[in-house]
């Protein structure tokens, strides 16, 4: 084998690719990195606040739910208990403290625990040296509570190093199995752990660092679905791979072409639009209602502008807005006038007919 020829061909290919590379920009990389840091710091601070200051107040619970859960509809909680002395997760234990799972990540021990505290159930993580860190929430479970409460906890510590990311939460007593659907990976099946003295079961798993969860489903012993949460539509949920023609590529193509772009369909239902040497990627994630600004802020998105009645969000490198039951994403962010044009078209071009 002639190594020289192989090297020369590789160099040719690399040079060619380099000449076609379109850098999103150092600014976009720095903003993305900064937002990751801010989000991580904010997440840790929120967890600390929730865990140490007022985990049982409505505000504390709301903060915890903001950090850990997708937006849920109608998850009533019971009356807030009066302050009690501190316990493993900030509230006193009135029953045994159950260790549901434990492990080590990045050399730091962690454990996921649950216990009864009066009429409430506390659950969450302890981590770090002496298991003195972490945090959780306490709530009263009733027949009105959502059958499954999905949490996906923080991804990074304040020092920027990777921290474990978990899928965890309580699930209705009727569930024996929980399935977490991931993009591009086999689903994760978990046994829902039953603790006789608690009114709910629990599931917890450490996710691969790049995993994106799109749904969580609970099954009873007969295999019937007893709880389900669709997690798609979250900004962090990337588009699911689908068969060509089954996704929103027709709609995205129509929007981009009417805006003057030439289009090609790429991987994962992402449509590439090119106009005047400028290239954008467009894709959608499914959602049946517009996510709230506060929720998107928790995911690192700020309001970029208001285009007509539509709010456009950005994380520094992409913009997104809600249109026709979809979150539509464009990356890199076009100029403001271009955004307005695309927003307008996304409202006017019928998604179903274009698809």
């Amino acid at each position, binding site marked *: *084998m*002639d*190594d020289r*020829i*192989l*090297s020369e*061909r*590789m*160099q*040719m*290919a*690399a*040079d*060619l*690719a*380099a*000449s*076609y*590379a*379109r*850098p*999103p*920009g*150092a*600014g*976009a*990389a*720095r903003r*993305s*990195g*900064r937002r*990751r*840091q801010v989000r991580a710091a904010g997440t840790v601070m929120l967890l600390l606040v929730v865990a140490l200051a007022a985990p049982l107040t409505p505000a504390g619970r709301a903060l915890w739910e903001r950090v850990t859960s997708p937006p849920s509809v109608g998850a009533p909680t019971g009356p807030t208990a009066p302050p009690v002395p501190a316990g493993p997760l900030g509230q006193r234990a009135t029953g045994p403290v159950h260790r549901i799972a434990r492990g080590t990540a990045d050399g730091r021990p962690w454990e996921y625990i649950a216990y009864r505290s009066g009429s409430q159930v506390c659950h969450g993580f302890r981590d770090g040296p002496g298991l003195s860190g972490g945090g959780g929430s306490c709530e009263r479970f009733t027949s009105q509570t959502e059958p499954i409460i999905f949490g996906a906890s923080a991804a990074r510590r304040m020092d*920027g190093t990777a921290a474990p990311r978990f899928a965890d939460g309580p699930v209705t007593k009727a569930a024996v199995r929980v399935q977490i659907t991931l*993009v*591009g*990976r*086999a689903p994760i099946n978990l046994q829902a752990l039953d603790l006789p003295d608690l009114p709910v079961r629990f599931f917890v798993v450490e996710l*691969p*660092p*790049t995993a994106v969860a799109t749904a969580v489903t609970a099954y009873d012993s007969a295999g019937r679905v007893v709880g389900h949460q669709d997690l798609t539509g979250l900004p962090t949920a990337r588009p699911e*791979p689908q*068969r*060509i023609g089954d996704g929103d590529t027709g709609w995205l193509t129509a929007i981009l072409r009417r805006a003057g772009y030439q289009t*090609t*369909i*790429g*991987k994962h239902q*992402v449509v*590439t639009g090119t106009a005047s040497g400028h290239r954008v*990627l467009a894709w959608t994630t499914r959602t049946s209602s517009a996510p709230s600004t506060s929720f998107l802020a928790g995911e690192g998105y700020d309001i970029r502008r208001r285009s007509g009645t539509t709010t456009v969000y950005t994380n520094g490198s992409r913009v997104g807005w809600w249109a026709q039951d979809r979150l539509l994403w464009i990356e890199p962010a076009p100029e403001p006038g271009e955004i307005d044009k695309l927003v307008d078209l996304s409202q006017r071009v019928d998604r179903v007919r274009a698809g």
Partner: protein
Amino acid sequence: MGAGEEFEEFYGAAFGRLVGQLFLVTGDLHEAEDVVQEAFARAAERWSTIRTYDLPEAWIRRVALNLAASAARRRRRWLAVRARLAPPPELPPASDEVLELVQALGRLPMSQRQPLVLHYLLQLPTEQIARELGISTGSVKSRLFRGRQALAAQLTDPAWEVADRG
């Protein structure tokens, strides 16, 4: 020069070069751009530390290689299903020789592609490849050997055949 300006200058100088290298690993220009940009975003988080490294570019390349490997693992499970349905990867207009090489590399496992690119494109010694990939030098050598054999079997350039016979 401030850290911000320094980062921008470094980004401008290295982005295209790294995309070229990652393109040979991923076989897809978009994907190469994505993993390199993500690696730069991670570098930006800790630039004050990384800027002091002897080879900041090697750190970013390593992160990008890991991201590319993760993406490849993610795809593997349903690749067979998508094989006939998915559009072809994005390739820049290229000569037949280059396309043949990219396609041949794409048929190799990621574990062979990475050391081949680091060795034949960047001319890195096996010890440095081992450090960048976090594997032993013995593993690097065996993967290079198997990868070279697999490439030789796929590439049709007569020069390869002559060289093989020699």
